[in-house]
């Protein structure tokens, strides 16, 4: 049995259905361009959900609404059973500390070294850590993504794949319960893409996180998903496991798997 098949079987086991994210009838328009036209979606604890869709279908906008970077026009969002529209600034921050977000290009702070990037996030969340403890946590996070040698490099010295790894290390250093990945393999070669996908899977297993992964990369979707949701023109068009959707009767859905 290949490694891929083993990983696929392990990840496709349906987890316990306790929802951590509940999105209902989410709508968002930019001017006259309606991007989300009523997305309703639940994400369950320990689940690895992949969101597929063509460019402009509203995938990134959905996860940006979840962390408050985009304010929705309509609909409700509950994270950890809290209605985020009712949260004050402090409560929002408390929710955000339990969510990690991996940006498409890593979004590393380019005036800081890799060490400072990780320490900056950690020290703002966890007070009273000694310098030795911070260094230990930084090294541990970098070891988890296989980049401990790059600890004193600046972001400009890193390759695209390395930037995403450091971005992931910066995300996991605060040990979030949910990680949102915005196109984690975009712009990478196929080998590096696979490495990043395997890394995502390893992080999911080690930290028992719930994941929402926005991607166009079907190899990444196959490897990392328990469930896949396909967005089309601002609404959910199809939902199922990789294997179910691959054999769908809908030709448009099948076109993703060719």
């Amino acid at each position, binding site marked *: 049995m290949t490694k891929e098949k083993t990983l696929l079987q392990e990840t496709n086991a349906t987890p316990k259905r306790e929802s951590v994210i509940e999105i209902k009838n989410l709508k968002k328009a930019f001017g006259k361009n309606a991007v989300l036209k009523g997305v309703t979606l639940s994400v369950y604890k320990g689940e690895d959900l992949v969101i597929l869709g063509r460019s402009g279908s509203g995938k990134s906008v959905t996860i940006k609404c979840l*962390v*408050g*970077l985009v304010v929705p026009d309509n609909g409700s969002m509950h994270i950890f059973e809290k209605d985020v529209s009712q949260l004050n600034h402090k409560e*929002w*921050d*408390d929710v*955000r*500390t339990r*969510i990690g*977000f991996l*940006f*498409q*290009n890593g*979004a*590393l*702070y*380019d*005036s800081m070294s890799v060490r400072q990037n990780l320490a*900056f*996030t950690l020290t*703002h*969340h966890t007070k009273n850590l000694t310098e030795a403890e911070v260094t230990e946590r930084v090294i541990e996070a970098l070891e988890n993504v296989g980049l401990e040698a790059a600890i004193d490099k600046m972001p400009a010295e890193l390759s695209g794949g390395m930037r995403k790894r450091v971005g992931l290390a910066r995300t996991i250093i*605060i040990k979030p319960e949910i990680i949102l990945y915005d196109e984690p393999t975009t712009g990478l070669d196929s080998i590096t893409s696979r490495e990043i996908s395997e890394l995502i899977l390893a992080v999911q297993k080690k930290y028992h996180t719930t994941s929402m992964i926005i991607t166009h990369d079907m190899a990444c979707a196959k490897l990392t998903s328990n469930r896949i949701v396909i967005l089309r023109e601002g609404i959910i068009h199809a939902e199922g496991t990789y294997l179910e959707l691959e054999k769908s009767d809908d030709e448009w859905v099948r076109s993703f798997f060719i």
Partner: protein
Amino acid sequence: MLLHQFQHANKTIKKDTILDAYFKNIFEEIGKGSQFTARFFKEITTTSFEIKEFFWQCFVIGYKSLPLVTITGFIMGLVLTIQSRPTLSKFGAESWLPSMVSLSLIREIAPVITALICAGKIGSGIGAELGSMKVTEQIDAMEVSAINPYKYLVVTRVLATTLMIPILVFYADFIGIFGGYIGYNIHGNISMFRYFTNVLEHLEFLDIFPATIKTFFFGFSIGMIGSYKGFNAENGTESVGKAANSAVVTASLVIFIIDMVAVQITDFLY
């Protein structure tokens, strides 16, 4: 005839629409800028302070601007002395040269020129840095990490410029007066002690105080405008250049407006 009237009416409507949009944009920008500035006073009073970043910004804004301020301050004093000397000589008032140069520098020239130079160097730097952070999602990354980007990036920079610009202006005053001493000695002969005694004899508290107060406003405007332009850069690298450029232009304009208001207030009070 009818067609001509129709074309004329059409042109007038178009012109009105463009003007409407222009003024709407200006008022929108003023509204957004005011909100952004009001947030500064809210954040500074309600949240903990990023002391390390503040000191770093003081170093970047203050210390790293010293070479530029030294050169421009020295040239200001030197040129002003050399240019004023022939006119004062005609009236036999050459001995007034040190006090005239120092008064001109302290009351007007050094604050405005230093602020304009800092608007170019510091304002554009802040605009470009924050603009670049905005378009590469670094500001969003702070936000989703529950780190307040306004407090970390804007409050520290605005406070640093508000504190550092007056210090730089004081320094430019001193260097300018020294430049005046060198300028005086190109065609004349005066000892440094006598020159500085002459300068200090004619300086009053009211020459220094209003000029110092306005430099705090200059510093605040440079930091706030640079931060606002950078923070609101739209997606795309082109907007980084626009943010930097717009920060310099707007800050320079605001410096002149503040200077005009400050002069009117000083004139009214004293």
